[in-house]
């Protein structure tokens, strides 16, 4: 299965954020999306998951994503959002269980035993099971991020889109997240459309974290893709400098953490 973007442009109100993007993501890939703030990374993830209007074409397994039923799309792609403010105070468990919505059936959409077990497994994987009865507003930023991550995992899709999944995590959880994602990427997920190899598309600002998980790197600048290829070939001092508009390699070299 493949996600294919052809001549995609998108934006908010009058401002265009993506310009004429062409991209193909094949199942089983681990893709790092990099670039400066406002370069269109989040918009790209949203367009690829069919969450906003766009010009051009986005297909998944040959089907136009904008014409797919959301329930079916949500069985293939899960997007972990950046955390926002919440007024309605669900418990951690309730929140993660909602990730199983696309699998519920029946008139009143009750969750099955399997849904509950999967939610539990996702909470355990993200280290939030011990807080399962806490309310969302009682959590720290990092805990909330892990809850959203657990909800995204609970969705049980082969395509996992992550928008800065480690931004609020402490160093230990970041390392654990990387290990977990790397292991997860080796597996397959069964969907109503057959078995699909697990695929990660993730936005990171921590290059080391990105490099440890993702074999492919896509760099964006001003709403266009400016580099795309194997991480080991794309992430070079010259490329980083042109993408981030400053001497990234020199900066990383000057950083002193332990000596």
């Amino acid at each position, binding site marked *: 299965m493949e996600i294919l973007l052809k001549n995609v442009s998108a934006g*908010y*109100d009058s401002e265009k954020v993506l310009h004429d993007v062409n991209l193909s993501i094949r199942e089983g890939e681990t893709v790092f999306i990099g670039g400066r703030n406002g370069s269109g990374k989040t918009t790209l993830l*949203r367009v690829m*998951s*069919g*969450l*906003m209007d766009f010009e051009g074409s986005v297909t998944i397994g040959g089907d136009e994503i904008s014409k797919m*039923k*959301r*329930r079916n*799309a*949500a*069985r293939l*792609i*899960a*997007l972990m*959002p950046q955390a*926002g403010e*919440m*007024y*309605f*105070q*669900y*418990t951690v468990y*309730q*929140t993660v269980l*909602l*990730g199983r*919505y*696309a699998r*519920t059936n029946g*008139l*009143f*959409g009750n969750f099955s035993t399997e849904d509950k077990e999967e939610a539990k497994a996702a909470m355990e994987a993200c280290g939030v099971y*011990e*807080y*399962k*009865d*806490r*309310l969302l507003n*009682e959590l720290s930023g990092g805990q909330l991020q892990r809850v959203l991550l657990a909800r995204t995992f609970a*969705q049980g899709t082969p395509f996992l889109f992550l928008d800065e999944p480690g931004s609020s995590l402490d160093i230990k959880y970041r390392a654990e997240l990387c290990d977990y994602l790397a292991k997860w990427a080796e597996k397959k997920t069964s969907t109503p459309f057959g078995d699909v190899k697990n695929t990660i598309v993730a936005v990171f600002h921590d290059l080391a974290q990105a490099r440890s998980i993702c074999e492919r790197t896509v760099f964006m600048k001003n709403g266009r893709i400016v580099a795309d290829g194997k991480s080991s070939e794309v992430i070079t001092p010259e490329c980083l400098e042109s993408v981030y508009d400053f001497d990234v390699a020199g900066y990383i070299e000057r950083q002193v953490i332990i000596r």
Partner: protein
Amino acid sequence: MDNQETPEIRKKTKYGQTAGIGIALSLAVCLLILLTAIRAGSVYISIPDLLKIIGSHITGKPLPQEVDPMNDSIFWSIRMPRAITAFLVGGALSVSGAVMQAVLQNPLASSYTLGVSSGASLGAAFVLLCGLSFAGMESFMLPLAGFVFGLLTVVAAILLASRIDRSVSNQTIVLIGVILSLFVTGIMNLLMTFYGDKSKQLWLWMTGSFSARNWTHCAVLFGAGIFGFVILMMFSGRLDILTFGELQASSMGVEVKKTKIIAMLVCSLLTGVSVAFSGVIGFIDLAAPHVVRKIFGPSHKIVIPMSFIYGGAFMALCDLASRTLLSPREIPVGAVTALVGAPFFAYVFFAKGRRKA
């Protein structure tokens, strides 16, 4: 240390097993309030007599000798339909408030604040003033007009909001709703000036009243209420997810636009029918869902039925106060809901900040 707490203890916290007790207790209190609302007043009746009256009407058997036929007409024809109408209106308004708050992810949303109530009241006023009616449709004209005008107000609010702010943010809709609501109130005031002879009737409409309601009102309300309730219960999972925002809801598999439109239609129906039979009664639809969420948590599978129970019970209580406090004079029930409810709501809302867990 989190680990010292055993899982058994944690199981019971936060909307867990205590929910069952809460529901049972709430139902009991609600029944008690309804019973009091029916019995209280200048004429006294014993509970066995009341049950005999109800029994004779349900079974169709003649009234037992020992029951005063006067009581039969007072309780069966006046007080019971009145109390039950109040209960159903309170319940329907609260359910629609709870759902609107979820759909717009805005704790301040309700039929009242969005202008649906005033829109519906304007529709009802037109029917009243023009004497508009079709043969055989008499009892449906007011609710129909209420529904149509309530819906028109929501559509107007959303259209206007989309002109101002293309992403139609939910804040804008609420703001426009408030503006529309004020505008419609202005029109109502104008109508009252032009139709001086009917101004008393119109004024009752704007402040709300349950006097002289009959079983037909109850039946229409009950039908609309059950219809709306079942549909919204089917939407409860979608509503839960929608509170996380439209983008997240869509990524989790919810058809956001369809869900929003259907939910708002059903809310307009519930509000329109309620307002047509009671006038504009604010506040309960805003407050009851908040109280319910504080007690039972935000899951709509429980918020929707409990909002119905709490909103209904609170409305029945307010109507009781409105007809008994200054008896024989009647206080507009809308005034009672605001007078009793506002401080209570303020307490509930601000107490939340002080309590940590």
